């Protein structure tokens, strides 16, 4: 009996001990600890992690292998970028910062969470690194004027990534459809509207205006113009500011410089805004806007455009609209696109422009090595490396055409604006449409714009952090559906105002006035 008991005990003990050992082994972390910055790095061990937006480019593995081979030889480290889908990029990047992850660089911007990250000390102030003289290629390819324009209260929180002097969003339309409808040259908003209604009538299967889940906030009250706001296209001289990218936009007084008072008002109180809401509501009800705009991923919208199922897409003065043309013509033979900028007065409209970069590479304060992150920025400022990353493998993904153009051979598309845009090194795609080239050139000339009186004003969200949080939540819930026309304008606006009042609109508005007035005083 006792013998039998012993054996049972032993069995249980052994079993328990074994499973405990297994459990502890599973919990133990035997991964090699990354060493602290500045310490002696074991050669070849360091791989900088970078956050990039969008999907992994086609043929990425081969390009990355080549990039890492060269990087290892030149600088002794490699990179391992993480691609985060656009739908969640802003939020995931913010979360990775606030959770103290140790990646090195990320795409940030005012329309994302850069003001918040700068205020909380999550991103590195770059002035001393940039002026250290250790990064000659970088300083040679980024214009010092652009650096100065992108300092916030004298501090530089990111490296501006630009390929044109000014950024102005507009429309990329299916020119072949417009030609068929007898509208060969659309130059104003009324022309666009007619085009949309005609498309709706003649092509049942094509969505006239494609809107993705990233776009609602751009449609009505946005800097420099609301995308679907005809009043702003006619009067592109409104100064708009918000504490964070998804928070409430205020319109600032145009005569602030003279009076010293910025007098910020919530966007709906500014002229033309509510009319724009009503117009968009009508578009939505008439079926011009895709009904799933609040949930449609931007990548999915892009592939629908390339499949020929969308007549109008969002475009930017960055020369990238034409890069989708080969895929579109493959799916829809004879398709053609044109860029439409419906400014009243066209190229001589002189709209407001802050000359603030839309995209920055920021360095994570908790990154493995800020020095190496800067070395990487310097490395991609060398033409050969820049081309490799931006356009892919020469001969496989692209062929050079002269020194400043390239021909696409594959569908490789790298988000260069998140790591490696250098105005002086950018090549234009061969076969850029005439209309896109026209507006891209127009955006290169500073004299085509009026400097926004609040150009360098970057609000600091820290004093009203809590209220701003609530305001942002209210915007997501009530303003986005309003912006795409999914709800009744009067009811929707009423709900939005009530929610914002509860969230502390008065306090946020007062803080905006205080900071904007201080900015005016400092001018």
């Amino acid at each position, binding site marked *: 009996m006792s013998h039998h*008991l012993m054996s*049972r*005990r032993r069995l*249980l*003990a052994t*079993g*328990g*001990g074994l*499973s*405990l050992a*297994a*459990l*502890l082994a599973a*919990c133990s972390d035997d991964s090699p600890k990354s060493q602290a910055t500045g310490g002696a790095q074991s050669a070849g061990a360091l791989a900088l992690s970078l956050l990039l937006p969008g999907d992994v480019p086609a043929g990425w593995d081969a390009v990355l292998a080549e990039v890492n081979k060269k990087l290892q030889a030149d600088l002794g480290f490699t990179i391992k970028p993480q691609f985060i889908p656009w739908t*969640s990029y802003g*939020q*995931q990047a*913010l*979360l990775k*910062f*606030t*959770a*103290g992850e140790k990646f090195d660089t990320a795409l940030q911007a005012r329309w994302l*969470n850069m003001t*918040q990250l700068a205020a*909380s*000390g*999550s991103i590195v102030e770059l002035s001393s690194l940039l002026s250290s003289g250790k990064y000659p290629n970088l300083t040679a390819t980024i214009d010092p004027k652009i650096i100065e324009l992108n300092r916030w209260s004298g501090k530089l929180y990111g490296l501006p990534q630009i390929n044109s002097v000014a950024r102005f969003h507009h429309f990329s339309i299916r020119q072949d459809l417009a030609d068929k409808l007898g509208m060969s040259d659309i130059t104003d908003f009324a022309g666009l509207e007619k085009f949309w209604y005609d498309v709706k009538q003649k092509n049942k299967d094509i*969505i006239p205006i494609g809107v993705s*889940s990233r776009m609602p906030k751009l449609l009505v009250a946005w800097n420099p113009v609301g995308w679907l706001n005809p009043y702003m296209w006619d009067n592109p001289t409104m100064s708009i500011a918000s504490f964070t990218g*998804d928070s409430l936009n205020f319109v600032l007084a145009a005569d602030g410089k003279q009076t010293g008072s910025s007098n910020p008002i919530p966007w709906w109180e500014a002229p033309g805004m509510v009319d724009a809401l009503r117009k968009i509501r009508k578009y939505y009800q008439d*079926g011009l806007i*895709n*009904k*799933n*705009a*609040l*949930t*449609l991923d931007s990548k999915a919208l892009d592939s*629908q455009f390339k499949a020929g*199922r969308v007549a109008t897409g969002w475009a930017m003065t960055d020369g990238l609209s034409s890069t989708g043309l080969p895929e579109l013509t493959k799916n829809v033979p004879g398709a053609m696109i044109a860029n439409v900028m419906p400014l009243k007065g066209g190229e001589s409209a002189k709209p407001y422009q802050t000359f603030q970069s839309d995209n920055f590479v920021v360095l994570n*304060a*908790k990154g493995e090595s800020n020095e190496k992150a800067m070395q990487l920025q310097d490395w991609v400022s060398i033409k050969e490396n820049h081309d490799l990353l931006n356009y892919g493998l020469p001969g496989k993904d692209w062929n050079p055409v002269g020194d400043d153009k390239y021909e696409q051979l594959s569908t490789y598309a790298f988000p260069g604006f998140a790591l490696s845009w250098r105005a002086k090194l950018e090549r234009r795609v061969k076969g850029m449409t005439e209309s896109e080239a026209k507006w891209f050139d127009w955006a290169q000339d500073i004299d085509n714009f009026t400097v926004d009186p609040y150009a360098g004003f970057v609000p600091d969200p820290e004093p009203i952090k*809590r209220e701003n*949080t*609530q305001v*942002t*939540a209210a915007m*997501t*819930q*009530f303003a*986005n*559906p309003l912006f795409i026309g*999914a*709800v009744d304008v009067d009811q929707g606006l009423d709900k939005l105002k009530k*929610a914002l009042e*509860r*969230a502390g609109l008065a306090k946020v508005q007062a803080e905006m006035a205080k900071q904007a007035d201080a900015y005016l005083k400092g001018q």
Partner: protein
Amino acid sequence: MSTLQTRPEPQTRPPSGAPDRRRVRRRAVRTNWTIGLLALPAVVFFLVFSYLPMSGLVVAFKEFDVNLGIFGSPWNGLENFTYFLESGDAARILFNTLFLNILFLGATLAAGMVLAIMLNEIRSTFFKRVSQSVVFFPYFVSPVVISIILQVLLAGASGGGGAVNDALGGLGFPAVDWYTEPGPWPWILTVVKIWQLGGYLSVIFLAAITGIPEEVYEAGTIDGASRAQMAWRITLPLLKPTAAVLLVLGVGRIFYGDFGTIYAIVGDNGTLFDSTDVIDTYVFRALRQLGDFGTTAAIGLFQSVVGFVLVVIAVLIQRKYSKETSVL
């Protein structure tokens, strides 16, 4: 799932007093320490993965700053809780969470029972097996896939039309913009949940039906009961204990919105928040959009505490009404 235990018979007491009882206890400890050892890995597991992380709950009472860390951040009392309660969203979210979960719980349990009784009535073994597998299958379908199926049904692949609207059109009804109408969503989600869980629960009930002694049915036959009467008068009452246990387990999770399904379907579509926003989706959104750890931890803690209280109440009620099947 916890196993069901019938309560042990009360032990006959040893005739004399204390020393004997001590001896008994000592012997129990001596003979049972090996069994205790066997439980050790599980105890360690829960300590490491469930209890240790609870120290992070202090974040709920702090103004969290990543640069200072969890324990270095300054305390801010109950501010994180007041933020949630004053946001104006609290009442709506609590209501939605409870309302949707009660709907889900009632509908899935009822559907599971009905399905089980139906399956039980199938004569052909082969057909019974096939049907069981077919109704069980949706349980394995990912919420993301469900959300895409729903989109195609309700809004079409490109955000216009959809099979349901086509059907409505065929019947002469106007099309509905399902994805901007909050009203019907609790019911749509309930249908989704029944589709998801009905088959799964029916298998549990079937197992319980299998456990019903054959003699009871034989007695029913002798008394001249029809098949329908036997299902109604014998099977259904004998399934009650199983249903009660499933109900208690469900009530314990009543404060947990079904995050996966609801988030995959609704996402950040603000027009549907009125009727579909539950605690989990709200917390997730708050954290993603605002990166505010303090508030989200506070809401999470609130959810856990209320959930715990509800479980206890549910179990006590169940014990009162049906002692022999109590889980405690």
